């Protein structure tokens, strides 16, 4: 199999594009990211590694705005992310200039995915090593959407999804616990999913909330408060489980 992964323009005999699969491995090593769609809110949450003490954390924004009504979070190679985000931002403004309308979430997702695909079918280049979670409200219908793209260039819409480190555990949690939520409930669900795989605490999580008014990054204190609420709820649930059992004995 090693002979088929030098230039990505070649398929392996059993139909694999190894460079794309290795890019997906790079994504699996990236920080955990989760996105949850509610009825009036969409929440993005990203893990923040707190080992870098001397770094100015404000210069490392992991959830970015592409336009007034679109935000993106990603997992994988951050340098590749910078390039992709820049191209997407230009496309958002270019679209507004040529057709005098803002992009829909699907349009910009299709654009980013198209860009990622191009790099799987060109000579001498490697794929982008990142998966993105793109959220936003449709500027005409006001419908909230969450999309995911990956290094192969595929994209699809989701009610809730996770990518990056331990994304399988987060996705399992979301599958078990997802329900239509709105406002604060959506934020709590996203943070609960992240807490499954991330150390608890406001300084380990970055959360941003997209509403019709725009994107709002939550302050550390706010996140800490919600985390405390979640832990309290968890403790209460544990206690409730133990109490009937002890009555039976």
């Amino acid at each position: 199999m090693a002979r088929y992964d030098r230039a990505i323009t070649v398929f392996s005999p059993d139909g694999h594009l190894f460079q794309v699969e290795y890019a997906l491995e790079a994504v699996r090593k990236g920080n955990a990211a989760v996105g949850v769609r509610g009825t009036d809110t969409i929440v993005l949450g990203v893990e923040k590694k707190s080992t870098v003490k001397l770094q100015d954390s404000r210069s490392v924004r992991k959830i970015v705005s592409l336009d007034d009504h679109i935000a993106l979070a990603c997992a994988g190679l951050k340098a590749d992310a910078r390039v992709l985000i820049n191209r997407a931002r230009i496309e958002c403004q270019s679209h507004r200039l040529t057709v005098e309308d803002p992009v829909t979430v699907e349009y910009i997702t299709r654009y980013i995915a198209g860009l990622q695909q191009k790099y799987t079918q060109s000579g001498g280049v490697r794929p982008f090593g990142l998966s993105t979670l793109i959220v936003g409200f449709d500027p005409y219908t006001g419908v909230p959407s969450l999309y995911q793209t990956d290094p192969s260039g595929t994209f699809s819409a989701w009610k809730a999804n996770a990518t990056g480190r331990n994304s399988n555990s987060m996705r399992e949690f979301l599958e078990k616990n997802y329900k239509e939520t709105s406002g604060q409930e959506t934020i709590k669900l996203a943070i609960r999913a992240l807490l499954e795989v991330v150390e608890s605490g406001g300084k380990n999580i970055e959360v941003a909330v997209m509403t019709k008014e725009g994107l709002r990054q939550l302050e550390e204190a706010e996140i800490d408060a919600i985390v405390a609420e979640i832990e309290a709820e968890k403790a209460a649930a544990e206690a409730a489980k133990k109490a009937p059992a002890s009555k039976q004995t």
Partner: protein
Amino acid sequence: MECVFGMVGKGFALVVADTSAVNSILVHKSNEDKIMILDSHKLMGASGEAGDRAQFTEYVQKNVSLYQFRNGIPLTTKAAANFMRGELATALRKNPYMVNIVLAGYDKETGPSLYFIDYIATLHKVDKAAFGYGSYFSLAMMDRHYHPDMTVEEAIKLAEQCIEEIRSRLVVAPQNFVIKIVDKDGAREHSWRRTTKD
């Protein structure tokens, strides 16, 4: 016959433009908004070739937005003015934009400012500026009555005097004018001065 003029007051800047869209002897409409709100704290009054005006001002607005998304902070008025001048200068010897611009902006650090940007890429930071045939009258009026640190009421009164002068002395005077203002609270439309209802 397009008139655009502007002035700086105490903590604000004003831009006034006529609102007629004319093609030789036909007036297409008299409520054409020629003062574009570039971002939250910038106003751009433009006069000149209609197609170039729309194309250039929209292009500048989208690039100003892009800068903000890329860098997380808005451009200063000075930076926006220099960007515009650069674009006009680059196009000048190939395919010039026939647009004259009065750029007004408010920055938290430096306060209000006004820039005169000509179609051949002249850039001047000024307290009062005017373009078009109307400038013969509005500039003279402002030279006589303008003083630094005017209040909004004083500046509006001066703008009205300029509009009156244009209306009475310019042979094909525009019918309606729009006044837009930018201060620490942002850029917004202030009022209209109409003679027709279109």
